[in-house]
C-alpha cells in the first residue's frame, strides 16, 4: 500500500501516526486515572464514571457560555477555570454519592456495580432534562485551535499537546498525592488493611470519602479536557466506560504505573491497527488482544502483592 508515496511522505506520516497514538494514550490515561483510584484502591466498580466525566464537560460548557456572554475579554483563559470548576463539581458529586450510596456497599463490591449503573441511568436522564437531549458544542479560545506547523507535512495539533501536558501534570500530581503526602499514605494504609488502619487512628470513613471524591474529580477534569476532542451529550459517558475499565484491569488494578503502561500499550496497538485496517476491526483486534493477555495473566501487567 505504500508503493505510491515518497519516503518523506511516509516518514512524516509515521511521525504523525505516532503522535496520534500519543494523544490516544493521554486520553486513556486521563480516563483511567480516576477509575484506577476508585476501582484499584477502593475496589468499587463505578459504572457511573463516564457520567462524572460528562458532568465535567457540561461544567466546561457552562463556563464557556458564561465567559462568552459576560466576560468576553477573559475568554482566552476560561479553560483553566473551567477545569478547576469541573474538578470541584465532579468531586463534590462524588463525595455526595459516596456518602449516600457507596459507603453502604464496601463489603459487596459487585453490588456497587449495580447501584452505580442505576446511578448512571439517573444522571443521564438528569443531564437530558437539564441540558437538553442535543449535544452541546464547547467553543474553544482561539489559541487552542489549529496546529503547530513543524514541516509541510507534519502538523502537531495544539489541543493534542494541551491534553498531553495536562495528562502529565495530573499524573504527577496524583502520584505525588498518593505516594508522598500524608493523606496518600493513609489511603494506601486503608487499602492494605482497613481494620489495622482504623486501629492506628486513621479515620477510614473520611479517607474513603475523599478518595472517591478525588477519583470523581479527576474524571471531571478528564471530561473537561475531552470537550476539545469529542462530543458532549447526555449519553457520551457510556462510550468510555468499557475502555476505561479494560485499561485499569489490564494494568493491574492497584498500580498507577500499571495503568499508565497499559494505557500506552493499548493506545499504540489500536492506533497502529487503525492505520492498516478499518476502525471497527482495529478496535475488535485490540480488545481481543487485551482479553487474551488477561486470560494468560489475570492479575494484569503490574500486580500489587497484597495479602487477601
Amino acid at each position, binding site marked *: 500500500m505504500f508503493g505510491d508515496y515518497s519516503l518523506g511522505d511516509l516518514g512524516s506520516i509515521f511521525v504523525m501516526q505516532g503522535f496520534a497514538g500519543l494523544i490516544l494514550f493521554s486520553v486513556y490515561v486521563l480516563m483511567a486515572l480516576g477509575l484506577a483510584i476508585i*476501582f484499584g484502591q477502593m*475496589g468499587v*466498580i463505578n*459504572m457511573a464514571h463516564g457520567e462524572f466525566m460528562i458532568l465535567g464537560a457540561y461544567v466546561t460548557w457552562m463556563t464557556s457560555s458564561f465567559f462568552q456572554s459576560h466576560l468576553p475579554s477573559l475568554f482566552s483563559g476560561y479553560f483553566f477555570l473551567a477545569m478547576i470548576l469541573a474538578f470541584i463539581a465532579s468531586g463534590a458529586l462524588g463525595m455526595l454519592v459516596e456518602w449516600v*450510596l457507596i459507603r*453502604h*456497599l464496601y463489603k*459487596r*463490591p*459487585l*453490588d456497587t*456495580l*449495580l*447501584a452505580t*449503573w*442505576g*446511578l*448512571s*441511568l*439517573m444522571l*443521564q*436522564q*438528569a443531564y437530558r*432534562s437539564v441540558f437538553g437531549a442535543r449535544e452541546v458544542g464547547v467553543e474553544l479560545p482561539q489559541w487552542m485551535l489549529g496546529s503547530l506547523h513543524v514541516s509541510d507535512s507534519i502538523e502537531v495539533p495544539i489541543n493534542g499537546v494541551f491534553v498531553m501536558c495536562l495528562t502529565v501534570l495530573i499524573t504527577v500530581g496524583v502520584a505525588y498525592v498518593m505516594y508522598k503526602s500524608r493523606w496518600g499514605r493513609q489511603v494506601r494504609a486503608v487499602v492494605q488493611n482497613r481494620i489495622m488502619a482504623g486501629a492506628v487512628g486513621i479515620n477510614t470513613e473520611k479517607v474513603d470519602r475523599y478518595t472517591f471524591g478525588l477519583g470523581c474529580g479527576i474524571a471531571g477534569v478528564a471530561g473537561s479536557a475531552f470537550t476539545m476532542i469529542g462530543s458532549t451529550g447526555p449519553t457520551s459517558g*457510556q462510550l468510555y*466506560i*468499557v475502555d476505561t*475499565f*479494560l485499561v485499569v*484491569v489490564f494494568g493491574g488494578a492497584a498500580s498507577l504505573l500499571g495503568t499508565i503502561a497499559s494505557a500506552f500499550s493499548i493506545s499504540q496497538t489500536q492506533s497502529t491497527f487503525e492505520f492498516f485496517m*478499518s476502525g*471497527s*476491526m482495529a*478496535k*475488535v483486534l485490540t*480488545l*481481543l488482544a*487485551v*482479553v487474551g493477555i*488477561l*486470560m*494468560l495473566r*489475570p492479575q494484569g501487567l503490574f500486580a500489587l502483592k497484597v495479602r487477601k
Partner: protein
Amino acid sequence: MVINSRFFNRSELMGFIVLAAVLFVILPLTLDVFRLNLVAKYLTYAFVALGLVLCWGYGGILSLGQGVFFGLGGYCMAMFLKLEASSVENTKIQSTPGIPDFMDWNQITSLPLFWQPFHSLTFTILAIILVPGIFALIIGTAMFKRRVGGTYFAIITQAVAAILTILIVGQQGYTGGINGMTDLRTLKGWDIRPDHAKVILYFVEVVLLFACIGIAQFIRLTKLGRILVAMREQEDRVRFSGYSVANFKIFAFCMAAVFAAIGGAMFALNVGFMSPSFVGIVPSIEMVIYTAVGGRMSIFGAIWGAILVNFAKTSLSESFPQLWLFGLGGLFIAVVLAFPNGLSGLWADYIQPHIDRLFTSRKSKAGWKDNSVADGAPAE
C-alpha cells in the same frame, strides 16, 4: 448423587403453583394477544435470569456477558428463520435472489459457508445449545482454571460482550450489522407473525421455561448445587476438600449460557427479529439487574424479577416517556441498598412468616423444615 426426597419444599411448591397458574391460565385469559406477546418477550429474559441464579446466586460468579449467549442463541435461530424468509420468490428484486437482503445490500453474491448449515432446523436447534455452550466452556476454562473470579471476571465478560457487538455491527454483510436480522416470517412454512401463532409460541415458551426451572431445581438439590454454594462461601475450603472448583464453576457458567441461549432463540421466534442491541454491555447488565431485583438466590424470584422489571419498563416508558429512566435507576439503587435479596428476600422476610403461621396454627405439628441450602447474603 443424593437427591432430596422432595423435589420442592412447601414454599417452593407454592411458588411453582402460583407461577404456573399465572403463566398458563391467568395471563392468557386476561391479556390481549399484543400484551401476551410482550409477556413472551419478558419471559425470554426469565431464561437468562434463571441461568444467573445458578451461576451468580449459587455459584457466586457474576457474568456481565449473558447478552453474548442470549445473542448467540438468538442469532442462530434468526439465521434459520432469515434463510427461510429469503426464498428466491421473496427476494427476486435483489441482484442475487435467494440470499438474505442485507447480504445483497453489501454486495455479497453467494451465501457464506457458515450460513449453509442453517438451512436445517435440526442443525439450528443443536447450534442454539452448542454454540453458546462451547463458547462458555472456552471462556470458563480459560478463566476459572487460572482462578480469575469476582470483579475481574465480570469486567472481562463485559469486554467479550463489547467485542462481539463491534464484530456483529462491523461485519454487516454476514450479520445484518446494526439493523440486525429483521422481517423473520415463517418456521418450516408456519407463519410466526399472526396472532394465533403468537399464542402458540407463548405456550411453547412457557413450557420450555418450566422445563428449565425443573433442570435448575434438580441441579440445586443435588450435591452439585450444594458444592456450588459451598464454593461461593469458602472457595479454598472446597478446594482443599479435594473438589475441582474450576470444573464446577465452568459447569454453572455453561448452564447459564445455555439457558440464556434458549431465551435468545425464543426471543427471535416471538419478536420476529434479532439485533446486536441484545448482545452488548447494556442489555447484559440489565439482565443481571432483573435477577437482582427478583432475588439472585431464588429461582422463582428471578423469573418474577424479569417479568416485573420489564413490565415496569414498558408501562413507565408509556406513561412518562421523558422521565422513566429516573424510576428505573432509582429502582436498582433501592434494590441494592435496601433489599439485597430482591423481591424474594422481601417475600421470605415479611410475607412468608405470616403464611407459615397460618399453616402451623392449623396443623399443630408441621414437620416442615427448609430443605434448601444455606441462605444469606452472598459474599463475593
